[in-house]
């Protein structure tokens, strides 16, 4: 292996063959990269790691099943909650024949439909482990970007559609209880304030999640993708 030694400002020599002097100070000589590579390859990296492959296989399968169940439960839970609210509003609206409840049902129906479509679309776009590395990074990036989009626009697809129904219910309740005195009106106003705070809280938590977690993740993945792109993606 040929190499050269250059003089640096700090008066130390740099061996461009790739020497690893600090590692071999006791021997008083430097190690070439080939030697380092040979040591790396000769080293027992697994050490005392003994794995019962049957037990591991069972765990891996269990893990995969759990993951799929978890994803299914999450999607099912979110959609079911929205459908349930729609159903409750719808049933009350039919039973009580109140336009404000119909408006509430329509708002939560919109949210339910949006969530179902979004989940179905995301499931179709899910990547497989056999995809190339650039594809896997792209898929992760698309997921994160979509999550950011969802949370950033939560006001439009989740909060605002519920507002007309909620306002209508509060207004109609307020009108109906006009003869019952100030206390009832104050209670209704208090409920309205609690709803407003809850909506603001949901919005704030989601925007914080974007800043704290999703944006750094997106930047990290974009950096990864850029470092692969500059090398001419083949896969």
């Amino acid at each position, binding site marked *: 292996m040929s190499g050269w030694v250059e003089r640096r400002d700090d008066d*130390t*020599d*740099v*061996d*461009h063959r*790739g*020497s*690893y*002097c*600090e*590692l071999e*100070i006791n021997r008083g000589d*430097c190690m070439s*990269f080939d030697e*380092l*590579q040979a*040591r*790396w*390859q000769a*080293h027992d*990296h*697994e*050490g*005392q*790691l*003994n*794995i019962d*492959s*049957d037990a*591991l*296989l*069972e*765990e*891996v*399968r*269990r*893990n*995969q099943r*759990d*993951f799929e169940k978890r994803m299914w439960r999450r999607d099912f839970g979110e959609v079911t909650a929205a459908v349930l609210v729609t159903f409750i509003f719808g049933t009350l609206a039919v039973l009580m024949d109140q336009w404000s409840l119909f408006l509430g049902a329509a708002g939560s129906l919109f949210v339910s439909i949006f969530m179902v479509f979004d989940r179905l679309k995301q499931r179709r776009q899910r990547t*497989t*482990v*056999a995809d*190339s*590395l*650039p*594809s*896997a*990074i792209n898929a*992760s990036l698309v997921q994160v970007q979509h999550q950011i989009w969802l949370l950033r626009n939560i006001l439009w697809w989740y909060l605002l559609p519920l507002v007309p129904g909620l306002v209508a219910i509060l207004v109609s309740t307020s009108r109906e209880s006009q003869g019952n005195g100030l206390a009832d009106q104050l209670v209704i106003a208090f409920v309205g304030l609690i709803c407003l705070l809850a909506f603001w809280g949901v919005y704030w938590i989601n925007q914080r999640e974007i800043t704290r977690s999703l944006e750094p*993740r997106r930047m990290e993945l974009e*950096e*990864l993708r850029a*470092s*692969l792109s500059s*090398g*001419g*993606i*083949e*896969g």
Partner: protein
Amino acid sequence: MTVDDQEAVFQQWIRNHLGIMVKVVRSFADVSADREDLLQNVFVNPWSSIPSFRGDSKESTWIYRVSLQTAMVWRRGERVRKKHHSKHLNEIAVVAQSSADVSCQTSELIEQLYSEIRQLPKIDASIALMHLDGIAYRDIAEVLGISENYVGVKLSRIRKELNERLGGTKR
């Protein structure tokens, strides 16, 4: 492919290529809890990838590809949010812990190398790891989806950087 075939292949891969998975984990995670988490993920993905493996590339290259893919998109600390780890997965984590313990017994040279690899950007760490393992440029390029020339360019930079980081300024 039948489930029995998939199981047989998985067990063979674990027997023959466990070292690759361990090296990937140790190159991307330094804290024992992170290693446990990453190791669990690294074990699952080769299993899922078996039906897609057609033998066009070497097994070792495939395992590298799947393991590195997992490590690249894995996020340190994400384990904190996972509350659904089963009891059995925690038992596997004990195995991962023993891997971390072993690292204390390995030579200083290898530990120092792992430590330096972990400081590199993820793509560079992957290239360094495969290069140290003697994987051909073509296979490294295939695993990462980049050109062979770029692997060469990257490697010369990585070797120089490792040299500097490991204190190769004395002679």
